[in-house]
Every structure is written in C-alpha cells, then in structure tokens.
C-alpha cells in the first residue's frame, strides 16, 4: 500500500489528539460491547428458544402452579407430540449470593424435549438410578468445582428443609449460548417431601409441537381447553415467553439502544470536530498534494481513511477490552448466565464504529476535496 506512509504520518501528526480520539472510540465501543453483552444476557432465552416448543404457565402468574393432571390432557390436543413439566425449587447453596436455577423435572420427557442439553447415556442412567440424583450444567460445575459423585446440600426456601443431592451427570450445551448453569433433579424426589399446598401441582409445562407453523393455533387451543377452570393457562411460544420474561426487568432493549445512540452521536461530534481541526491545520499540505497532481477524490479518501483508521483502531481496542472482561463469564454469579460477547456482536460493533468514522470524516473530507489550491497556498 504505497499511500500508507501518507495516511499514517498524517494520522499521528498530533499524537496526543489522535490518541485521545482513538481513546474516545475505545471507551464508546467498550461500553457498546458491555451493553450488548447485558442485552444478550437478558435475551438469552429468546435467542436459544426452540421454534417447536410452547410454554404453558398459569394465567395469573408464572409463580402460580398448574395441576399435574394437565399433562395427559395436553397430550390429547392435536399437534402436540410431547409434554414435560418442571418446578422452580429456589434453594440456597451455602450462601444466598450463590444463585443458580434449580428445577425439579419430569425425567421421562425433559431430556428429549431439550436436546440442546447433552448428557451422556451412562451419566443419565446413573441419575435415573439415584432418587437423590442431580444433573448440573458444565458452567455451574466449573463455578463451584463440583464433580460427579459430589453431595450437594440445598436449603429450601419454597420447599422447606435441607435437601441433599448427588451429582450424577454434567450436561453441556450444544451451542455456546446454551445455558449451562442449571441444576436438575427428580420431580419424584420433590413429591416425597412436598408440602400440602404443592400436592399434585407443577410449575409449568413445556410442550413440543409437531409443526412449528401450528404453534399459534395450538397455543390458542390449549388456553381454550383450560378456560373457565380454577387453573387457567397462558400459552406462548418459547420465544415469546422468553421475551416477556426478559421484559419483566424493564425495556432493557430500549434502554441500551438509547444509551448506545447517545454515546455514538457524541462520538460522531467529537470525531467530526477532531477531523475538522485536523483538516484546517493542514490546508497547505492538502493544497500541495493537489498541486503536485493528487486528485480531489484522493484527498477526500485520504481524510476519510484517517477518520476511519481512528475508528477502526479505537473500535478494535474497545471491543477487545469488552471481550477480555467477559472472558471470565458471569460477574453476577448467576443472574446473567449468558455473559458473553459473541463474534457477531463484535463485528456489528466494529461496523458501527467504522460507519461513525466515515460519517464523522465526511464533512471535513468534503471541505478538503473542495479546497481551492491557489487560495490555500496563499495562506500563511
């Protein structure tokens, strides 16, 4: 690239100013990266939701249960292939800060309805053979340094008393974004010690439909089947369910977009101003380039290349910082299990940085392009 010396030397003509502008980009992209990670963490369920799964919860609230008898009734609705259920356990491991999701699951169906969670057959058999058996996600096991055979006590909050479990299996997500921080145990174990209120009840159902295109129709059918009963249902696709669940924490998406927009707009002004000053300071140099035969378009591209280079360097630094920070995973210890900067998000951030760089450099570049050589050379 024979013009690289020209671009780089111009870029670092005022080293401190250029470094500060690169720093602005780095900070903005670092913030963008973290906001995107938080957004991704809240929307994790949405992104990994199965297209062929529906979630059936109590119409009043997700924390209200549904009768176990609904399982058979659901299976009779046309289009439904399989039904499983789960209960939120809400136990505490050693300290309340050690939060993670614990579910009493229907052993017969849970594994087949969620094939993205992979457990080896021998571990599954060992789990099935132990009434106190539990299967934990790989990330959760890593977090607490658990291994197969470990005995884990959980202090019940919804279901009173201390509950002991033996780790019989460790599951892995098929995709990096699959949640590997869950703790599953037998619904039958929960039933042994459940209090009278919970007798014959489950937390929610997940049903698998034969054809995802029929999901909306089947969801409507399910809710109609249980209408005017003491336990009315609200059925959504898993994606809608995850979205509404995420929205319970507020409109994170809007918040993040607003913050991002303000940050990038400010960045646009800062960089635009920097480039305008840079062009004004070297009007004579640009005029000389034109005088010796460099075209107007070349001068335009030269200024744009500089602003884009600033954006690229700053963007790469910021995103690298965000990536480094998220390498250790969830800093909240369980609240945001999917704390991960994806390659796609990093590419999107980098593209946004480049766009800001180009837009910020556009006006100064146009003024450089339209520079009158004679007038510029006359300036002292």
């Amino acid at each position: 690239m024979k013009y690289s010396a020209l671009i780089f030397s111009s870029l670092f003509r005022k080293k401190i100013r250029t470094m500060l502008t690169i720093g602005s980009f780095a900070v903005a992209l670092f913030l963008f990266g973290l906001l995107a990670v938080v957004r991704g963490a809240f929307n994790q369920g949405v992104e990994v939701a199965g297209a062929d799964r529906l979630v059936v919860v109590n119409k009043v609230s997700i924390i209200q249960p549904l009768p176990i008898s609904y399982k058979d009734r659901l299976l009779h609705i046309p289009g439904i292939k399989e039904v499983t259920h789960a209960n939120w356990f809400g136990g505490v491991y050693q300290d309340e800060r050690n939060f993670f999701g614990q579910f009493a699951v229907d052993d017969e169906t849970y594994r087949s309805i969620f094939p993205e969670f992979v457990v080896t057959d021998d571990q599954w058999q060992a789990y099935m053979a132990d009434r106190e058996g539990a299967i934990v996600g790989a990330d959760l096991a890593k977090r607490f340094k658990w291994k197969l055979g470990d005995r884990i006590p959980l202090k019940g909050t919804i279901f009173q008393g201390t509950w002991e479990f033996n780790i019989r299996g460790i599951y892995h997500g098929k995709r990096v974004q699959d949640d590997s921080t869950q703790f599953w145990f037998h619904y039958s174990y929960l039933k042994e010690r459940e209090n009278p209120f919970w007798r014959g009840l489950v937390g929610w159902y997940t049903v698998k439909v034969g054809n995802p295109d029929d999901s909306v129709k089947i969801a409507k059918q399910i809710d109609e089947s249980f209408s005017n009963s003491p336990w009315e249902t609200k059925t959504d696709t898993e994606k809608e369910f995850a979205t509404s669940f995420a929205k319970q924490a507020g409109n994170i998406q809007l918040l993040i977009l607003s913050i991002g927009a303000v940050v990038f707009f400010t960045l646009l002004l800062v960089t635009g101003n920097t480039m305008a000053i840079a062009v004004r300071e070297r009007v004579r140099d640009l005029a000389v380039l034109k005088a010796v035969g460099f075209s107007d378009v070349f001068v335009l591209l030269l200024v744009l290349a500089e602003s884009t280079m600033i954006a690229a360097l700053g963007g790469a630094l910021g995103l690298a910082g965000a990536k480094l920070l998220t390498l250790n995973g969830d800093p909240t210890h369980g609240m945001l299990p999917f704390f991960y900067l994806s390659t796609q998000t990093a590419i999107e951030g980098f593209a946004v940085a480049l766009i800001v760089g180009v837009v910020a450099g556009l006006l100064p570049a146009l003024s450089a392009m339209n520079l009158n050589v004679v007038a510029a050379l006359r300036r002292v």
Partner: protein
Amino acid sequence: MVRVDGSGSGSSLVRVRGLDKKYQRGSEEIHVLQSLNLDVDAGDFVAFMGPSGSGKTTLLNLLGGLDLPTAGTITVAGDEITHLSGSKLTQWRARHVGFVFQMYNLIPVLTAFQNVELPLLLTKLSKAERRRHVEVALEVVGLKDRMHHFPRQLSGGQEQRVGIARAIVADPTFLLCDEPTGDLDRKSADEIMDLIDRLVREHGKTVLLVTHDPVAAERAHVVLHLNKGVLVEGQRAGDPAGARS
C-alpha cells in the same frame, strides 16, 4: 527563444495567447492580466519580475494549471490546458509541472525521501524504481545523505533543495518556481539559484521563475516584467547591450 508579442512559432514549449484574468473583489473587478502573449521554448530560463500585485504569481498559477483564465489560451507541449476539466488538469499537472514554492511547502510529517516520493506515487513505478528516482533527485540537489531527515531537521536552504528535488523527481516538462529564494538568506539563496541554474544548463530543464530578487533574476536567460497586467520584455541577464531573446 522567449517572445511576448505573439510572434512565436508553433514549436514553442509554452504558448500563451490573449490571456486575461479578472477577479471580482466585492463590487470591484480586478483585471490582473490583460491580453497577455508569451512563447517559451524548451530549455529556456525565464524570470518574471514586477511589483507586488502585478500578477506574477497569478500568471504562474495559470501556466501551472492551478487556476483558469478568464479568456485566452495556454498550450504546453502541444496540449491546450485552458479547456481541460478539473480532473484532467490535475492529471496534466502531475505529468508536466514541477512546482517550487517560496515557503518550500514540504509536508512536515514526512521525511525528505517521502516528500520527494510524493509525485511518484501517482505513477506506475515500482517501489524499487521510485526509490531509485528519489535517490537520484536527492543526489542532484546534494541531500542524499539527509533523505531520512524530517523538514524540521533541515535548514531553510536544505528544505528548499528538497522542494526542488520533489519538483524534478517525476521529470516534468517545466519547473514553475514562485519566489524560491524569497524566504532565504543571501548565501542560501545563491545556492538555490546555482542549483536551478545547473538544472537548466546540465539537465536541460525549462524554468519559469517569479522573483523580487534582481540577483536571482540575473541568472535567467530572459527577464520579463509584469506591470498592471501587461508583460514587457526586459533585458537578457548579463547582456548590457539589451539584446532581446
């Protein structure tokens, strides 16, 4: 041969006919050049003198394709440049004109080598060829040993020599020098004029020089005076009899 009466032959390197340049300053129209004719042959060394505001630099800018005339034509090496589009004129400048400025106008963040290399970036020469050309140009001006110095590390005279190397490196049709000694002390000015003189004598360059300095103008084959937009033939330098070109 240099002529200002429009009688030059068609073989002139530079041929100017009926050149007019007017500027509008507010409501006032300034007639900088009036029906100017000029013929310059290859290898000529012409100095333009005249009071400030007489139109010397304007004439140089027009001859170098940096500005367009209000009327008239300029033909260089058979190409009429007055009707070229902006982009064509830029390409033409790159091929035919070497500029030497009063304030040197080196790019401060580039080394002497990189400054001289600039016009060659517009050519299809390879990196090695460009390097060879730059080294030759810097050798001609006596600064090959300073090629990696930045302008701030050079004296005024040295900066101007780098400026001259930049002007000659692409072997242009002619050199346009706008007061190249105007910012230099006498000794440095003489060195620069020696160099320009050598470019004409030894390398056959055609040089058009604008200067206020009569000592510098003496080196030219012909001195032309501009006064109120009109070009007047002066004495041949070193010719007390006033022989005309």
